[in-house]
């Protein structure tokens, strides 16, 4: 490394929230012009450390230096004045406003719409991040909203950009584009700090990698000197990591060969949405007991409708769907569709049979079964009367999966089951899905992460442009079919 002072240096940062030591002497040095990946499990302190670097939070002790000068940021305004920008996991956009209005927000003086549009055009041209300045944010797909966040940061002369898990919300294609952009940005002299989960992604783009574990920096290395296994070891501690990597591929089931009975049969199913657009066309699909069907698709290809038809949550507009009486459903938007955040865990578990019940709620029975479910699924919470909101994402998801798998349903539909979860919670969720399959449940899994689909699936179907095609378990062929519409 050169002897020049690092662009950003955080040293021996400590930060506690009440009893919790979120950061316990973490350090991070980022050189100008590099893509620096910051890794760690959920709760390792990545976001807290970056919030301190961006002036959103203050360290209890430790130093922050920009270009060799020790700083004390009181607010993001101070950080922005030093060329630091951050795109947070949850976007800070005003949905009812246009792109240009969002970019202008936080500026000074009068709103000069024309100048703002020019700025956006200039940044779009220079960065290759195309975005329509007059579009309303609420009409933009999530990938474009993220581009807007980046454009917003760049409009404030940001030279160091912190991206907090930027690819979590993106389709694989969009994720690749974003990562390629970070590379170009760094090659042009900018600095990127990338908080990430997916190791393969990280190694494909980062120059250097720093790993946090329990609030401490445990590894800093050049990306080419490390490997997925090494990083996983560093993130998790040596013990768990090796099993996780080892169990990548489990034994697969060949239900058709065994002559297992068809649990779900779709015949020429079509779905027309409220606007009259055909989202799914002539879908034929059979799912047998004891197999996992993986669904691969890019965002908006019709898989959302397919999954909801199979889950019995959406009536097909055409064709017929033969479904079992009970289908478990784990939707991707957990907070919106799967849980009631302000209700207790027991009340959330009781949702499962909410509509079938009449008369009195058997609360004492439900409390006992919820406690049992928590034990069985290793849900860490402050008892069954804790509110759902107090649980971490991984624990919420384990409870949801446990609820949907109670009494072994004939079929289970799972949509992006590990989005936002850390490695360990992901492994638990995968194990639960496989266990359901082995118990004879017909499982349908969709993930926007193709690797996850291939990891879990016994068979793969691709949905592209509302049409469904079965494909061999081949990453290349499936990936191509997702984008091109399959072999047909």
């Amino acid at each position: 490394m050169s002897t020049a002072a690092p662009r950003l240096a955080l040293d021996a940062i400590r930060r506690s929230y009440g009893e919790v030591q979120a950061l316990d002497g973490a350090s991070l040095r980022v050189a100008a012009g590099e893509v620096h990946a910051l890794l760690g499990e959920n709760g390792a302190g990545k976001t807290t450390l970056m919030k301190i670097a961006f002036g959103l939070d203050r360290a209890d002790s430790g130093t922050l230096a920009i270009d060799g000068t020790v700083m004390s940021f009181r607010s993001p305004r101070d950080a922005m004045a030093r060329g630091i920008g951050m795109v947070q996991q949850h976007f800070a956009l005003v949905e009812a406003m246009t792109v240009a209005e969002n970019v202008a927000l936080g500026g000074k003086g009068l709103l000069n719409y024309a100048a703002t549009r020019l700025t956006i055009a200039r940044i779009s041209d220079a960065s290759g991040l195309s975005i329509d300045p007059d579009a309303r944010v609420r009409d933009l797909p999530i990938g474009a909203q993220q581009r807007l966040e980046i454009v917003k940061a760049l409009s404030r002369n940001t030279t160091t950009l912190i991206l907090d898990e930027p690819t979590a919300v993106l389709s694989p294609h969009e994720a690749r584009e974003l990562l390629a952009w970070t590379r170009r940005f760094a090659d042009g002299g900018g600095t990127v700090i990338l908080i990430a989960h997916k190791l393969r992604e990280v190694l494909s783009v980062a120059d250097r990698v720093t790993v946090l574990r329990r609030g401490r920096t445990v590894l800093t290395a050049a990306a080419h000197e490390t490997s997925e296994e090494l990083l996983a070891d560093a993130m998790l501690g040596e013990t768990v990591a090796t099993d996780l990597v080892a169990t990548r591929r489990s034994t697969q089931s060949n239900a058709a060969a065994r002559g297992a009975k068809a649990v779900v049969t779709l015949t020429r199913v079509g779905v027309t949405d409220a606007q009259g657009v055909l989202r799914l066309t002539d879908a034929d699909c059979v799912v047998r007991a004891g197999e996992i069907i993986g669904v691969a698709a890019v965002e908006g290809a019709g898989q959302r409708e397919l999954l909801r038809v199979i889950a019995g949550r959406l009536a097909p507009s055409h064709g017929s769907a033969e479904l079992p009486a009970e289908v478990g459903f784990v939707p991707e938007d957990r907070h919106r569709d799967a849980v009631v955040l302000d209700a207790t865990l027991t009340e959330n578990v009781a949702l499962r049979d909410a509509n079938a019940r009449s008369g009195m709620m058997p609360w004492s029975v439900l409390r006992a079964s919820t406690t049992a479910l928590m034990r069985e699924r290793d849900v860490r919470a402050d008892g069954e009367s804790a509110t759902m909101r107090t649980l971490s994402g991984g624990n919420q998801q384990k409870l949801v999966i446990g609820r949907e798998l109670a009494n072994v349903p004939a079929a289970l539909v799972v949509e992006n089951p590990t989005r936002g979860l850390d490695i360990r919670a992901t492994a638990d969720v995968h194990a639960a899905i496989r266990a359901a399959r082995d118990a004879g449940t017909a499982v349908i899994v969709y993930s926007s992460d193709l690797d996850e689909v291939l990891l879990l699936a016994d068979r793969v179907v691709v949905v592209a442009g509302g049409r469904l095609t079965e494909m061999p378990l081949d990453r290349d062929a499936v990936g191509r079919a997702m984008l091109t519409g399959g072999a047909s």
Partner: protein
Amino acid sequence: MTVRRVTRAILEPLLAGVLAVLMLAVLLGVSGYPVGEALSALWRGAFGSWSVIASGTLVRATPLLFAGLAVAVAFRAGILNIGAEGQLLMGACAATAVSVAVPPSFGAAGLILALLAGIVAGGTWAAIPAVMRLRFGVLEVISTIMLNVVALNITGLLVRGPLQETTHTFPQSALLDRALRLPQLMTGSRLHAGVLLALVTAIGLAWFLRATAPGYRLRMTGANPAAAASAGRIDVGRVMFAAFVLSGALAGLGGAVEVTGVTYALYENLSPGYGYTAIAVALLARLNPASAIGAAVVFGALEAGASAMQRDAQVPAGMVGVVEASVILVLLASEWVGARVAARGASIRGGTPRAENLPGPAVS
């Protein structure tokens, strides 16, 4: 946990009452009224004697409780029913219509018919904005406020037309026959059996929400309609419609009780805005039916005390209205602060290393 909730349900309305009096004292002082005299009139008007408590505070608390329950149950289902006033008036109209139509020989049966008519009329009146909301997407906040005006004018029409007293002189209905009135509870006071009915209704509603399956569906629908529909496969539209009608029915019963227990006749100014104060009652009770009992008594006392203050100390009763509204604002603000503190606590707990493999999203 439960003990804490119960003490909170009692303490909070009490605290709100104390707060209201303090704010009133400041307001009176600033406006140049004799503070001591006015407050003592307020106290005497609300709690001065058993008969004042019964005839003033509790009689006023009764319609506030019915309407407060109406608002609470709607809000719990995620419906912003601002129309308790109109639903209460329609209940009063229907109860009056039945009471003047049935012969006095019906006695208690006639009374029950009148109360049922109030329930049906309130529920039906609420069904209108319910259909508008669920079928056509019309926001109920707007439609219910408008329907309040419609209900007030219908009442005015009725007391000058079909329901006007026999001499056709005054804009009010004939007095209800004694046999068709709610029984008095204490001789020499205006306290009537309706207050007991309100208490039973509040406790019944609390039980319904907590213990029964429809009550559970109502709460889950209000707390997160998308999850109720997807994970619970609840027919959210149906639940919301039912909750809206139930809400209207409760307010309508309040109107019927007011006519058969207090005024014994229908007239336009039957309600001094009970349906609006009820929103404050429901919020103070944090939408909890059992807590609404205490909240209704606090507001009943303030209203009763306000008229005494006007009479004895020449302080405009509107002053109390200002204070009532301020109390609600203070409570909502404290709620908001509390929620923020709780959310902070939760996000911190989410990042706890005690389960370092599974902490939450906020501190990742």
